[in-house]
C-alpha cells in the first residue's frame, strides 16, 4: 500500500468536489438522525454494561480467592479477562470519547472517567481523541500508524531496524497497556526535541510521574493486594491477574490492528489534509478504517470497534448505535463507489500481520526473489543501509 495521493490509480478519483461535499451532507444526516433519537434506551444500555462488568469483576475476583483449586482459577481468570476487556473497550474507550457525556451523569463522563489501563485518562484522551482521530492515517502525523516503531506503509523509508518489526509487534501486543502509555507520552518526540534543545523537560517529567503513579497503583492492585487477599491462593491469583492482563493486552492490540492495518485501508500524505473540508475529512475516515464482521459477542468485546469505520466517522455517537447505522453507511459507500473494508477477525488479523511482515522487508523484496535467495539478498541490503546510516550520523 502507498499513500492514496501517490497511487497510480486514486480510488477517489471518480468523485468531484461536489460529490465529496454531498457525501459529507449524507453522513451528517445519519449523525443527526441518531442525535435526534438518542435517549433512555441508550442510557439504559451503557448503565447495564457497566453494571454487568463490575459484577463480573467482583465475582471473578471473589472466585480467585480460592484460585488454589484449578476450576476456580480457570473460571476466575476467564471472568477477569472478559471484565478487563469490557472495561477497556466498550466502557473506558467509549466513555472517554465523550459518547455518553450527553447523559450529564458525573459518574459516566469523559472528564471524570479513569480506566483500568496504564495510560492515565487525560493523557490518553489527548493522544487518542485529539491526535489519532484528527490525523487518522496521515503519514507522519498519526502516531497510531505503527506506534512510531514500525514501518506500516511503502512510503516509509526502509531501515534494517524494521527487519525485527514482527517481533516488536508481538512484544508490543503482550505489554500493550504499557506500550500505549509510552506512546501517549510521545517519548520519541520528546527525545528529538531534547536533541534540538526545545524540549519542555518539566512538563514531560510531570507526565512521566503521572504515568508511573498510575502504573504503580494498577500493579499494586493486581500483583500485590488481590494476591495477598487470597492468602494461600496468593500465587495462583497473581498468575490469574498476569494472565488476565496479558489476554486483555493481546485482545485490544489485535482489535486495533484490525481497525487500521489490514490491506485495503488507505493512508494519506501529510500535505493532503491542509484545508480539508468536512466532506474530505469524512472521506479520509471512510477509507482509513476497516471493520470486523461477526456476532453480537464480538461487537461487545471489541467495544464496537468492529465498526471502526462508523466509529471514525462519528467518534462521539454512542457505541451501541454503530451497528444500527452500519447499513446506511454501507449504502453511502456503495453509491459513491468506495470500498467498505471488512472481514472476519482471523482474515483481518492475517492480513494485518501479513503487512507487518511484508513491510519489515524493503519494498517489493519478496516478489522479486525466490525464498532461498531472500537471506543472502537481505544481508546485502543491510550492509549498505548501515553504512548509509553511519554516514548520516
Amino acid at each position, binding site marked *: 500500500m502507498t499513500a492514496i495521493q501517490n497511487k497510480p490509480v486514486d480510488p477517489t478519483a471518480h468523485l468531484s468536489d461536489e460529490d465529496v461535499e454531498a457525501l459529507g451532507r449524507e453522513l451528517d444526516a445519519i449523525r443527526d438522525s441518531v442525535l435526534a433519537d*438518542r*435517549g*433512555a*434506551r*441508550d*442510557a*439504559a444500555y451503557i448503565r447495564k454494561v457497566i*453494571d454487568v462488568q*463490575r*459484577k463480573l469483576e*467482583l465475582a471473578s475476583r471473589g472466585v480467585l480467592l480460592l484460585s488454589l483449586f484449578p476450576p476456580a482459577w480457570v473460571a476466575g481468570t476467564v471472568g477477569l479477562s472478559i471484565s478487563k476487556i469490557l472495561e477497556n473497550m466498550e466502557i473506558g474507550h467509549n466513555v472517554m470519547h*465523550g459518547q455518553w*457525556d*450527553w*447523559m*450529564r*451523569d*458525573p*459518574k459516566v*463522563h469523559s*472528564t*471524570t472517567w*479513569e*480506566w*483500568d489501563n496504564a495510560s492515565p485518562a487525560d493523557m490518553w484522551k489527548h493522544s487518542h481523541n485529539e491526535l489519532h482521530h484528527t490525523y487518522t492515517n496521515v503519514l507522519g502525523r498519526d502516531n497510531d500508524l505503527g506506534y512510531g516503531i514500525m514501518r506500516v506503509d511503502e512510503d516509509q523509508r526502509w531501515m534494517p531496524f524494521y527487519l525485527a518489526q514482527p517481533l516488536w509487534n508481538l512484544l508490543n501486543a503482550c505489554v500493550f497497556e504499557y506500550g500505549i502509555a509510552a506512546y501517549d507520552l510521545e517519548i520519541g518526540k520528546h527525545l528529538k526535541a531534547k536533541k534540538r534543545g526545545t524540549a519542555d523537560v518539566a512538563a514531560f517529567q510531570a507526565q512521566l510521574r503521572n504515568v508511573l503513579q*498510575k502504573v504503580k*497503583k*494498577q500493579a*499494586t*492492585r493486581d500483583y500485590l*493486594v*488481590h494476591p495477598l*487477599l487470597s492468602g494461600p491462593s496468593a500465587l495462583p491469583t497473581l498468575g490469574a491477574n498476569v494472565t488476565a492482563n496479558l489476554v486483555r493486552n493481546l485482545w485490544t492490540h489485535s482489535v486495533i490492528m484490525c481497525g487500521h492495518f489490514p490491506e485495503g485501508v488507505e493512508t494519506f500524505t501529510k500535505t493532503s489534509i491542509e484545508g480539508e473540508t468536512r466532506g474530505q475529512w469524512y472521506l479520509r475516515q471512510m477509507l482509513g478504517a476497516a471493520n470486523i464482521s461477526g456476532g453480537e459477542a464480538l461487537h461487545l468485546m471489541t467495544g464496537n470497534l468492529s465498526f471502526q469505520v462508523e466509529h471514525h466517522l462519528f467518534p462521539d455517537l454512542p457505541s451501541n448505535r454503530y451497528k444500527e447505522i452500519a447499513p446506511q453507511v454501507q449504502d453511502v459507500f456503495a453509491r459513491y463507489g468506495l470500498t467498505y473494508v471488512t472481514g472476519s477477525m482471523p482474515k483481518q488479523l492475517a492480513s494485518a500481520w501479513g503487512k507487518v511482515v511484508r513491510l519489515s522487508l524493503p519494498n517489493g523484496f519478496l516478489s522479486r526473489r525466490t525464498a532461498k535467495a531472500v537471506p543472502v539478498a537481505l544481508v546485502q541490503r543491510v550492509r549498505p543501509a548501515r553504512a548509509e546510516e553511519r554516514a548520516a550520523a
Partner: protein
Amino acid sequence: MTTVTPPQTRSARPRLRDRLVKLAEAAATPLVPADYLDLVDPLRSGAALRARIVAVQPETRDAATLVLQPGRGWAGHVPGQYVRLGVDVDGVRQWRTYSLTSPADRADGLIAITVKAIPDGVVSNHLVRAATAGTVLQLDQAAGDFVLPTPRPAKALFVTAGSGITPVMGMLRSALHELDDVVLVHSAPTADDVVFAAELRALAADGRIRLVEKHTDVDGMLGTAELDALVPDLAEREAWACGPTGMLDLLEGHWESRGLAGRLHTERFRPLVVAAGEGGTVTFSRTGAEVEADGATPLLQAGEEAGVLMPSGCRMGICFGCVLPLRSGAVRDLRNGDLTTAAEGDGVLVQTCVSAAAGPCDLDV
C-alpha cells in the same frame, strides 16, 4: 463496675479503620470502593445522597405526589423547605427543585414532594406521568428559609396558587396543631384542579383553618382589594405566599404599600427575569467546549446542552450552587441587567443559572 478505656485502643480503632479503607481503595483503583457498594445499596450511609421512589400517587389530572425513601445520609428538613432532585429524563440527568409536602418527622422516615406538570415541562411531566416506584433519583439535602418561625405566629395567612400550595401543605401537615388561627387563600383554575382538595376541605370543615378557594376560570384572578376584603385583619397576620410570578409581584407591592413588607414571606418557583444579555460565544475552557449562546439563555443551560458537567442548584439564583469563575469576558445578570466583566485571570464568580453571555466569555469548568 466502671471500665476505663485505655487511650491506645481508642486511637487504634480509627487507625485500623483507615487502613481498611486504604486497602479497599487499593483493591478498587481506578474506581473507588463506593462504585462497587453502589451496585448493592445506593441508599446506604456514606453514599452520595439519593432517594428511591416508593409510590406515585395521583392528586389531580396534572399533579402527583411522589413518596420517597431518602438515603441514610438524609439530615431531615424543616416544613416549607425544598429539595433538589436529579431525575434522568430520556437518559439525561436534569436537576429541579421541589418543596417537601410531607410532615417533618414521619415515623417511616419517608418524604414526599408534589409535582404539577406544566405544559412542555421536561421534568414535571416525567415525574407526574412516567415515574415509577423503585426508580432511584439523585437527592440533595433540604434547604430554604420559607419556613414558620418559632415561636409560632398567633395569626397566620397563606396565599397560594396552583402548585404554590406545596410548601404550605408541608407546614400545615407538620405544625397546624401549633397554629391557632390560620387563613388559607388558594387559587386554582377550577375546583378539580385544587391539589390536596380533600384534605384542605376536611381541615376547613373541622374548623382547623379558614379556607378561601378561588376558582380563577370563573372567579377571575385574585385582586389585592379583594384580598383585603376577604382577610380584614390582614395587617395583623404573618403572611406566606407562593405561586406564579405575577401574583407574588402583586402581593409584594401590596404589602409594601401598606407598610407591611417585613411580614410577607414569599417563595418563588422561577427567577425574575428582566434583562437579556447580548449573547456571544461561551467557552468552557477546562472541558474544551464552545457554544454560541443568545442573550436570553442562562449560561447553565448553554453548558448543559453542550454536555458540560455544570454544577447547579435551585436554577433560579438563590442557592449559589451553580457559581463558576468567569475567566474572561462579560455576562449579564438576567434578574436585574447588571453587567459583570472579567479580564484574563480575574476568575470573577458568577451565578450561571441567572447569567447570560454579553459578548464572548470563558468559564472555568
